[in-house]
């Protein structure tokens, strides 16, 4: 009976998140933005939306990376507000959202360290939502195994390392494989956490996470064609919490080319439509775009129900998508290459 007691701890924050959600840019806002000729125009239009004067203190000329940073800062401040006001189990839930950014940051730092870049260059590139205390210490370690023993064992991500990577593997494995293995462990953990919470949260979140798992399985498969990743290794990277488990995943593991992947998707109603329209011709949307669209649709659906945690996750993801959209439009405006300016993904 979620609705009975949810509001004790979550009612205020849910009201705030829904308030934030009403500030997400609508189609009319995007139509205004694509009409801009320069980045200063863009800034002017953004002032009339929920973003307000977030670019006010930046010296002109603006650059796209500055816009990107500021957008991200706004998202981070909203997230911090929510996180600081939350109690269990919402605070654990919000922490889980953070872990995915932490994984990206760790992989970034490991790559940077292995290529002998100095730590102070790498830290600004990290996503602020994924920062954790031991970030500075990463450059001390020179091999991944040392890294694990010294630094990562204290972070909340330690269990993901233990589950799937032994010390020996860390040295040998390619960084992308480390990233995917970590992400798989994280996704399965998040999925079982949501299931434990039960109720409407489980319903809403498990739907979204299952799609995320399946999407990663498809992308890993397609990207691994033509690389030296063996089929067994590939199968180990698939997260098991999606709809494709177990049949679809075993079929994907055996696939050798795009057509076979498509065949696998044919068996699952929701995914067949995603593959149908996609292609590499100039007029089509790419498969990635279709996946993003579907994700946006699922996230918007999370707002249809009240009294669950899915709204927080959905809001963060939609805001991220909005950041991507604005950055895409700004790039097109800045480079004066307006051909594909309409390829953003409208949210509401």
């Amino acid at each position: 009976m979620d609705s009975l007691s949810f509001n004790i701890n979550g009612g205020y924050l849910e009201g705030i998140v829904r308030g934030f959600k009403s500030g997400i840019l609508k189609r009319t806002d995007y139509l205004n933005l694509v009409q801009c000729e320069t980045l200063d125009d863009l800034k002017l239009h953004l002032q009339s939306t929920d973003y307000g004067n977030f670019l006010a203190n930046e010296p002109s000329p603006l650059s796209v990376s500055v816009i990107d940073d500021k957008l991200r800062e706004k998202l981070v401040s909203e997230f911090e507000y929510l996180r600081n006001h939350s109690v269990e189990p919402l605070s654990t839930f919000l922490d889980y959202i953070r872990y995915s950014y932490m994984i990206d940051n760790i992989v970034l730092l490991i790559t940077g360290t292995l290529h002998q870049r100095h730590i102070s260059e790498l830290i600004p590139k990290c996503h602020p939502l994924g920062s954790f205390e031991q970030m500075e210490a990463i450059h001390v370690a020179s091999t991944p195994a040392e890294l694990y023993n010294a630094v990562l064992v204290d972070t909340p991500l330690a269990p993901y390392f233990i589950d799937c990577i032994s010390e020996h593997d860390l040295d040998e494995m390619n960084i992308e494989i480390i990233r995917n293995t970590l992400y798989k462990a994280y996704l399965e953990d998040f999925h079982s956490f949501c299931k434990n919470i039960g109720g409407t949260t489980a319903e809403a979140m498990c739907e979204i996470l299952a799609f995320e798992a399946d999407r990663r399985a498809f992308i890993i498969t397609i990207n691994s064609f033509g690389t030296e990743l063996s089929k067994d290794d590939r199968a180990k990277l698939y997260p098991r919490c999606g709809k494709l488990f177990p049949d679809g995943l075993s079929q994907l593991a055996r696939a050798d080319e795009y057509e076979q992947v498509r065949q696998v998707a044919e068996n699952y109603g929701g995914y067949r439509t995603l593959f149908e329209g996609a292609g590499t011709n100039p007029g089509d949307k790419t498969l990635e775009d279709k996946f993003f669209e579907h994700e946006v649709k699922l996230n918007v659906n999370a707002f249809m129900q009240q009294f669950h945690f899915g709204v927080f996750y959905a809001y963060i993801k939609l805001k991220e998508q909005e950041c991507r959209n604005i950055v895409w439009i700004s790039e097109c405006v800045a480079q004066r290459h307006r051909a594909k300016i309409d390829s953003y993904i409208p949210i509401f």
Partner: protein
Amino acid sequence: MAIALSVCGAAWGIFTTGTSILGGGVKVPRIKTKNLISIILCEAVAIYGIIIAIVLGNLLEDFDFYNASWEVTAANYYGGYSMFGAGLTVGFSNLFCGIAVGIVGSGAALADAQNPTLFVKILIAEIFASAVGLFGVIVAIILVTKVKMGKSASI
């Protein structure tokens, strides 16, 4: 029981609605005053409880158990059970009514924040929820009108 449970229901409803109004009001301050109607509907639930409690209290009367005739005893027993039933009826129906009004009220606050035209429509649903509590009070009043207690009671 009547007043205890009704007040529980009203309180439950008020906190459910109240937190949503607080949260929604941060971004959209205009919803504050209109949504107080939901809170008032919840409060009405508590008032029903207190009305019944006062009515029941006034019906209590002394009677002499050992010297009374069979009819008087029977009438008093009937009165006692009747009052207990009425109290429970009102108590539970107000408890659930309060919870229901609270949940609908919280939905109304959040919907109003997104789209002002929705408020009146959801208010209609809330009024039906409130009617549930009213039914409980009506049934309780019917039950207690037949109660006669005291020395001169008779069925």
